[in-house]
């Protein structure tokens, strides 16, 4: 670990801790890419708030050292945000932690035989970063508070920086093809007919704030899982990049989890104030101007199942290749105690019991070669991670004395990709006919009336210290600022 590694050079166009000043080729490449990025941000970034002053966190070093925190807070106009290239410090003598090269020194340059695979991993990860900014660009206008608006923008600028991180890797290590891919990352657009983003969930709209919080809770958590497994990579620059990205990603998890908690909390408080006992009396609850718990459950079902698809097919050749090559590991690989090769291991995946197609014959765990089942394994780790947060939501409910629990639906529910794709499972995991499933769809997933109701609540609340009717004030605020702090100074208030 060197000083060079942990301080960021901000006296240049592109802040960095990778000695960009002495790497003319990559610096020129990134400087050429930079205007396109700014154009993209102005076109596709938060709509209507580009000239507002936002109280943002900016990374200044890649790790805190005593009183010197890794980030500073200040008012920034988003287009002036100091996007840069920050890699976690290089660990001395790092070894490849898994796969066929386990124990060999980590690669500091791209190994020729894995070039295509690595590039693909980085492009797919990179494509998700700007996508969520695009999906969320209209949310500022209906923010339930300046505090939430600021958090949205913080998430957005950091996704922008994560794009920079991936683009740096492409430009630095993948030559002309890498530069082309870096350009393509700006060309593809979420939901575009001509050039959509690569993964399905990133072409879905994020139409309201409940969706935003669930997106950051579930979908950004998929991002976290992917980054965790890439942070294990034998390709050291990728590992270091992802390790630092995880520092920022933690905030996104916090926004999602606390956002939903505050919604649930507000709903329960309103029910109690109104003397309502039955959380499933949807009409009565909605009349209070809060979001009823059954609708939140439906939204959970939707976002969770869409996110599961992002893990890819449960059984995958690519994931097997990535792992065996030492490019993408498992969640917290370093804490797992096995041979880290998995050549002869198996992993169990729930599949419909034999002879039970279309009817409820129950589930059986089928063992598959562990290398091929890595997507399923990461997905299971994801589910466990989600359940910790869901537990906190339920605590907020039970603390107010209501008997209602939010649950994650069965892994086979509402899936478009992988081994469950052609099944019709209820959230409880019961297999039913397609007709029966379609008939009950509205009980499990939000329908037009649910969406219309949620949309009706999306009224902006831009007064400092005020919050919309359907969401509670946060108990802990960013950087310990006072309750009436002006998180965003609106340019045209």
């Amino acid at each position, binding site marked *: 670990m060197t000083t060079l590694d942990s301080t960021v050079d901000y006296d240049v166009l592109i802040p960095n801790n990778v000695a960009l000043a002495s790497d003319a080729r990559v610096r020129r490449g990134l400087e050429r890419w930079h205007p396109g990025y700014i154009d993209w941000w102005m076109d596709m970034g938060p709509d209507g708030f580009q000239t507002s002053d936002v109280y943002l966190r900016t990374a200044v070093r890649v790790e805190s050292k005593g009183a010197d925190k890794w980030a500073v807070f200040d008012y920034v106009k988003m287009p002036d945000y100091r996007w840069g290239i920050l890699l976690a410090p290089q660990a001395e003598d790092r070894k490849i932690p898994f796969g066929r090269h386990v124990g060999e020194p980590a690669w500091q340059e791209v190994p020729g035989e894995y070039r295509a*695979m690595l590039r693909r991993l980085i492009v797919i990860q990179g494509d998700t970063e700007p996508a969520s900014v695009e999906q969320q660009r209209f949310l500022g206008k209906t923010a339930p508070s300046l505090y939430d608006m600021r958090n949205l923008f913080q998430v957005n600028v950091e996704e922008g920086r994560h794009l920079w991180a991936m683009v740096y890797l492409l430009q630095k290590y993948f030559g002309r093809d890498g530069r082309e891919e870096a350009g393509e990352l700006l060309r593809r657009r979420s939901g575009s007919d001509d*050039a959509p983003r690569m993964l399905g969930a990133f072409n879905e709209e994020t139409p309201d704030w409940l969706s935003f919080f669930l997106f950051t809770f579930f979908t950004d958590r998929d991002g976290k899982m992917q980054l965790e497994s890439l942070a294990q990579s034998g390709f050291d620059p990728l590992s270091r990049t992802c390790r630092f990205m995880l520092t920022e990603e933690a905030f996104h998890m916090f926004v999602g989890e606390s956002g939903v908690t505050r919604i649930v909390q507000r709903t329960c408080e309103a029910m109690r104030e109104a003397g309502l006992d039955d959380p499933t009396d949807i009409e009565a609850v909605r009349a209070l101007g809060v979001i009823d718990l059954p609708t939140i459950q439906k939204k959970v079902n939707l976002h969770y199942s869409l996110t599961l698809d992002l893990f890819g097919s449960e059984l995958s050749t690519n994931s097997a290749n990535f792992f*065996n090559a030492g490019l993408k590991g498992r969640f917290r690989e370093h804490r797992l105690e096995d041979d880290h090769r998995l050549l002869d291991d198996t992993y169990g995946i729930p599949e419909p019991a034999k002879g039970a197609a279309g009817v409820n014959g129950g589930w059986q765990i089928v063992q598959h070669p562990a290398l091929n089942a890595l997507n399923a394994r990461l997905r299971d780790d994801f589910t466990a991670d989600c359940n910790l947060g869901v537990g906190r939501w339920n605590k907020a409910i039970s603390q107010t004395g209501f008997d209602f629990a939010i649950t994650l639906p069965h892994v086979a529910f509402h899936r478009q990709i992988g081994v469950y794709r052609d099944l019709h499972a209820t959230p409880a995991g019961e297999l039913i006919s397609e007709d029966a499933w379609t008939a009950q769809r509205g009980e499990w997933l939000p329908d037009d009336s649910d969406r219309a109701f949620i949309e009706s609540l999306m009224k902006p609340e831009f007064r400092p210290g005020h919050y919309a009717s359907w969401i509670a004030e946060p108990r802990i605020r960013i950087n310990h600022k006072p309750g009436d702090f002006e998180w965003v100074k609106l340019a045209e208030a």
Partner: protein
Amino acid sequence: MSKQATADGPSGHQAGETVGEEPLDFRTHPDRYRHWQLRIEPPLAFLTLEVDEQAGLRPGYQLKQNSYDLGVDFELYDATQRLRFEHPEVHAVVLRSDRDRIFCAGANIGMLGSSSHQLKVNFCKFTNETRLAIEDACQHSGQRYLCAVRGTAAGGGYELALACDRILLADDGSSAVSLPEVPLLGVLPGTGGLTRLLDKRRVRRDRADLFCTLEEGVKGRRAVAWNLVDELLPRSSFDDGAKAHALELAGSSDRPSEPGGAVWPEIAPKPETDSILYTTLRIDFDRALGTARLTVRGPTGPAPADASEALAGSAGFWPLVLARELDDALLHLRLNETRIGQLVIESAGDLVAVAAFDAFLHREWEHWFVREVLLYWKRVLKRLDLTARSVFTLIAPGSCFAGLLLELALASDRAYMFEGESEDGEPAPCIQLGELNFGAFPTPNGLSRIETRFLGREDNIDSLRALIGTPLEAADAEEAGLVTEVLDDLDWEDEVRIALEERASFSPDALTALEANLRFPGPETLESKIFGRLSAWQNWIFQRPNAVGEEGALRLYGTGRRPRFDSERI
């Protein structure tokens, strides 16, 4: 030998079928397609690939990512045939897929990895024949093919596109074409990929070299610049754009604009213990000798007055029925009778009646339907050329090898002709040349079988032309160089028996290679390169440990394990 076969024990095989496996059924109908959807919208047709993952021909693999096995290609072949014959009003065909990110991932690797060598070779041969048939339709039938690639066309998926007249690619930053066989699988793009890249699309060889090692392929402007595709289309107007291109292609067609195609009844041969009975053909097996005797029956009635009459009676139009039945028989023999090493072709019927049909086809060839029948005969004869079996024709009393039927004898490795009257007084057999023998049925080397037989001897061919329409007895046929051996009553049975027994005793591998070399002298064509150079190298790779050994690339693909290569260059 397939895994199943090894498990069942060596060569204690049932008569007939490949050991331990159900015979492959290649007959199908659009109502029964599992993988393709055929939509007719004159003057266009749309063939949409949507492979049913679970509907592989054999157990043990899933057809993920719109990948294909023989079952998928049987449907494609059926569709291309029906489009030619049943739909004269279709002037251009659009190959497409509605899958989100994948057009077609090519041949299924699980299938290839678990298939016997024999099945791999036959799979490649059949898929190659179908793609060449698509090109034949483009060049000769006025039915043009266009491939609309949205998503990734990888390996065999791109090779399918290469067989089309025009390739369109979605310009969405992700859709790409690729030939990743070498880096991913340790084999070649063997369904014409390498050959078409250079000889058809004239891609520069160094770029082709680069392209064939780029796992992820090439997309967008570079794909156009390298001529890997013809044009880019925006994703939002992709289907409309493809349709406009197809309509432009359709504009050059000389096919009729009205529907009213041929009738295409199902082929339903009757299997008996050691025979298969078609209507114009029968097969008799001598399994001990590894021989199948194909007896072709001549027409039972006169040739139609004109092409419309032939079309009206298409279900029973002798040349078409025979072509279909021969085609069916050859596919069955190749795929399901792998222990039958010799095909003996005979015929029974009236030489004059066959000659009349021959003359009719020659006279009416400008009619789309007659043209299709002739083109089909050309393809069936090529199928015979490319069948890895020794082919002997026996020209015996009562036979009718005139014109297009004589072509079967010319396609054979040897032809034996009976000289003189038979013991029971049947008249001496004759053969007869027709106009069609002089160019209607080129072999894969682009020459007629007469030209191939008398390579570079124009004078010889001219003197043969003079014999058109003249019945030739054995001595004349031998003098004209049209038969291999002439045998009289005394020698016929013994000589034929000995020839077959001797043939059956040789190494089948050496025979396959010998025949494949001797059948195609003269110039190279795209087609001959595909079946010669490309297939031969591919089939060599298919035998090598680097591909199919325990740690070979093909065997390990999908497991995540890296293949271990023996680095010795041969």
